[in-house]
């Protein structure tokens, strides 16, 4: 990873770490949400941005992790173990699901993921003995860490998610994932084990949302099926990753910051309008700026050497 980017990342982290020292509760709460969205958008980026397989149901990992963590805390386990548990349960869900859908080409994965969140919500509602159904579970604030701790935990998740994406992006594995995104058949033909690649990326992408779900419950101290499996969470993470620039390291960070900022300033009070704008933004980005905002900064001039040293003067096919 280029040194300039590392320096930039460290500066961001230092700035974020100062938050609780200088900001009010309101600012902390806002930043905590922002970190959560960065963590989620990066996770989505890991599977969808890198491989081109669109996940419309990543919120399900968030929700499943949230429940797993909540139940652990409720049973008296320490919160760090609960976070770990949330992460592992999300992982445990992703393995069979990925195996089922990712060995196939095409839209099967998208189709299976789109319904996952809703089914998970139904199961959580019906499995009353475990989840207390629609009434949800309230955790006693006394056993939960204070806001500042949750703040740093969420920040840590955002950082870890970004580091995972950066490591993958600059690795041989990441190169293989991008080849899958560009042309899966050709990738397989030059030795890429595409099924294993996709599955690994998918499982990795489920870890962080599971943990983030738990931390979010530690912050709000309440969970029910609709808050855990909120479909608008899917829309948000997708729009943020796409708007910033999917398949890049910094795109989702940029996208989450811009979209969260807009939300806070302009349309927090109008949920329907807010979602409509998110949908329109997604459409606009997909149609007119597929590389996202970040491509405006990183787009290099096409470096085509002046002289066609190979004497190639044909039209491009």
């Amino acid at each position: 990873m280029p040194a300039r980017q590392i320096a930039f990342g460290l500066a961001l982290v230092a700035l974020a770490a100062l938050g609780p020292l200088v900001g009010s509760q309101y600012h902390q709460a806002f930043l905590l949400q922002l970190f959560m969205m960065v963590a989620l958008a990066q996770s989505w980026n890991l599977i969808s941005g890198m491989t081109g397989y669109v996940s419309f149901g990543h919120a399900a990992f968030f929700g499943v992790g949230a429940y797993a963590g909540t139940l652990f805390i409720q049973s008296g386990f320490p919160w760090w173990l609960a976070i770990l548990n949330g992460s592992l349960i999300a992982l445990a869900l992703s393995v069979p699901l990925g195996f089922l859908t990712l060995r196939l080409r095409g839209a099967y994965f998208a189709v299976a993921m789109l319904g996952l969140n809703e089914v998970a919500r139904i199961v959580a509602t019906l499995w009353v003995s475990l989840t207390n159904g629609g009434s949800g579970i309230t955790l006693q604030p006394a056993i939960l860490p204070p806001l500042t701790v949750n703040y740093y935990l969420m920040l840590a998740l955002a950082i870890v998610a970004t580091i995972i994406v950066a490591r993958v992006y600059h690795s041989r594995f990441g190169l293989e994932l991008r080849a899958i995104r560009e042309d899966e058949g050709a990738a397989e033909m030059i030795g890429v084990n595409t099924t294993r690649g996709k599955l690994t990326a998918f499982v990795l992408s489920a870890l962080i949302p599971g943990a983030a779900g738990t931390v979010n419950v530690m912050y709000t101290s309440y969970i029910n099926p609709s808050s855990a499996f909120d479909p608008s969470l899917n829309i948000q993470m997708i729009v943020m990753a796409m708007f910033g620039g999917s398949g890049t390291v910094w795109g989702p960070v940029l996208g989450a910051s811009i979209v969260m900022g807009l939300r806070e300033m302009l349309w927090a009070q109008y949920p329907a309008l807010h979602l409509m704008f998110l949908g329109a933004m997604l459409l606009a980005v997909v149609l007119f700026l597929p590389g996202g905002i970040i491509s405006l900064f990183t787009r290099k001039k096409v470096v085509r050497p002046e002289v066609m040293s190979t004497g190639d003067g044909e039209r491009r096919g």
Partner: protein
Amino acid sequence: MEEILDPIILGQLLIGGLLAGALYALLASGLNLVFGVMRVINIAHAEFMLVGAFGAYVLYTAFGLHPLLALFIVVPAVFGFGWFVQHALVERVVGQPMLTSLLATYGLSIVLLNIGVLIFTSDFKGVPALTGSLVFGEFVLPKPRAVAALVSIVFAVGVYLFLERTRLGKAVRAVSEHPHVATICGIDTKRIRMLTFGLAGAMAGAAGTMLSMIYSFAPESGADFIQKCFAIIVIGGMGNFAGALYGGILLGVVEAFVGGFLSTQWAEATAYLLLVLVLLIRPTGLKGAALAR
């Protein structure tokens, strides 16, 4: 348990399932038609259906127009809307990676859904234009469901015959099966795609108009239906028009039995469980048709 295995109850569940299945079949075959022709999964398909349902609702509450008559206004209108959406949006993503078209139609579905909320709020609506039941011996058919199923079948079969018998329909199938050959043969593929999307919209619009008579619905109701559609097209084979018809009927019946034996809430999850089951056993669909590549 004995009570539930009563042949009358089983028969009643079967009838209910077939009636619901006919509507699903109409809806899902439109989705599959689009997928077959341009390899685009229209995630906004259920929102097209709701455009039809709210259209029928407005015509009924404002002018007292019966949904069966509203069909003559709603269906052409949604056809036009589909044509326009293809022209303005979807045409730009045809032939691009699947990620692009999926995200574009996903964005469209969110926009339509929330415009719906802004206009109609999230409250449930219904069009109680038709009431009463037909009684055949021991079996009871609620009139609105029977009519909805009948209209759905007529529509689906009509489109099927159009594709099989007419010159234009054959052109649509040619584009679906051999796009390059179709271009060489002088078929205006862009026009065919707009026709296809319009046709799929019209089918969704018809399904929505029928839906308005039998279910209560809100702008958010699309999520359930698109999930059912996905299960159906995976069961029937992606891109296979007739496969979606069978798949729709099958899902309707299975749902009815799950609802009858377990609970209606589990019935909502049935589509997804069927989808997973099919992916487990026979990923290319029970009809073994065209696999998405």
